[in-house]
């Protein structure tokens, strides 16, 4: 198939407002889901890290959730939560749980037992040791979990357009549905490229957050 490159620029100019709106939505839906997933995921990690049964159950559950194909999950959610934002946020949040829960648990468990023992031996309570010693030391690992979750969500959010969810996925589906038409490829490619740019931007932001919030003493 011939692809007329000279048509790309006029397409982008004509659609600029819409592209901006959809990408803002895309970023927003990922951010909202990430905040929800962080609260649930990190909270769960803090509660279960030391309890073998609960820990395995939490990580396994989060793992099973991630194996549900996104298209299937979104379809199931339509009758419950309807089309649009609610279903998308819900799906992205639960998909994000695995990297967040797992990294929180791993990070907290990886803290040198000698460090924990000396903290306890100095008269810090268990909660104080967890929040003031373990959590800050585990922070870079936990943050990596959030970063992976963000990447995952940016990708899956594209599929959410299928249930009329927000974001750039709309362009990809539009392009697919009008295959053969003049602008089909422009829609699909624009959607894809913008999503890649969003993903890279999230990554850059996480690198920056890591620099700013990790103690110099444990920075690699």
């Amino acid at each position, binding site marked *: 198939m011939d692809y007329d490159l000279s048509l790309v620029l006029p397409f982008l100019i004509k659609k600029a407002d819409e592209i901006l709106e959809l990408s803002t939505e895309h970023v927003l839906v990922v951010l909202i889901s990430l905040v929800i997933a962080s609260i649930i995921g990190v909270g769960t990690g803090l509660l279960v890290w030391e309890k073998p049964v609960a820990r395995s159950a939490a990580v396994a559950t989060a793992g099973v959730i991630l194996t549900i194909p996104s298209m299937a999950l979104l379809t199931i959610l339509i009758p419950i939560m309807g089309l649009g934002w609610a279903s998308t946020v819900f799906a992205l949040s639960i998909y994000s749980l695995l990297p967040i829960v797992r990294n929180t648990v791993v990070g907290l468990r990886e803290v040198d037992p000698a460090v924990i023992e*000396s903290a306890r031996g100095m*008269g810090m309570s268990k909660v104080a040791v967890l929040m003031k010693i373990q959590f800050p030391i585990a922070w870079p690992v936990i943050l990596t979990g959030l970063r992976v979750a963000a990447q995952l969500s940016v990708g899956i959010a594209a599929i959410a357009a299928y249930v009329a969810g927000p974001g750039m996925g709309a362009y990809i589906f539009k392009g697919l549905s009008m295959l053969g038409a003049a602008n089909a490829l422009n829609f699909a490619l624009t959607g894809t490229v913008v999503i890649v740019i969003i993903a890279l931007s999230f990554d850059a932001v996480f690198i920056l957050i890591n620099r700013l919030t990790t*103690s110099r003493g444990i920075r690699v």
Partner: protein
Amino acid sequence: MSKATSGASIELTNVTKSYPNQPQSAVENFSMSINPGELIMLVGPSGCGKTTTMKMINRIIEPTSGSIKIDGEDILSLDQNILRRRIGYVIQQIGLFPHMTIAENVSVVPKLLGWDKAQIASRVEELLSLVELDPSKFANRYPKQLSGGQQQRVGVARALAADPPVMLMDEPFGATDPITREKLQDEFLRLQATIGKTIVFVTHDFDEAIKLGDRIAVLSERSQIEQFDTPANILANPASDYVSSFIGEGAALKRLALIPISSAKLSSTSATGPSVEISENLREALDHIVLNGGAPVPVTDAKGKSLGSISVKEISSALGADVSSLGIKKGK
């Protein structure tokens, strides 16, 4: 040597620790009474329960039965965290908090105790100087920027932060190289001479026990006390074959290192060769004699004034003397 004593007495009575599913207790009926300001060494092979015994004093490990009192107060009825803030704790792996600066590490317990900022800052400065780390240079560094020996000093400073009457030390110098270890030990002795804490110090190194301890408890399985006495007395009269085997080769030489030349009877005959100072120990004197072809060597005071000479004969007779008079140790 006058010692400041800010330590507390510790009294362990019939302390036992047994774990479920284990036929033998880890520690069985351990009783010991420790005087304020005393440095007690618990020595024994690995797995003998010495560390378990020590860790019951700050209840990192809870005793199954028995009683532990610090200055007469039953510590098993105290809140664990309150108790631990009054006991300094140093472990072999040091366990500095990697995300905190040296100053922050040292100020953890004072912060828990609610000291005000100015008080904490001046205490941190004082402690870092005490362990010979320049505060202006080290306070804002992170643990990973320090050598092993420097980290261990911070570990000691951190344990001393709130001026606890009791210190527990679990092989604190075990992970350092021999040269650093010896330096840390010397510094530690000097430090203890000024702070006079009651210290329970666990080690598997008998030479370290001799060097540091006021009294040594040689432990065998289940933390049974084979002998509990001063280093000089244990070296002179090991209570059993077990203790002898723990002392190892060269007991006489080890004893010599504990006896200052001043407690030997010097010969008035003059001698030639490299002189030794009277404040040195008999092992040093013997060392000089060996290097002098076996002939007696002159002994001088600190100013170099001759006090007489010493030969192998005087050294031997010092060893044969009543050991109780050799109880004075660590001539320096």
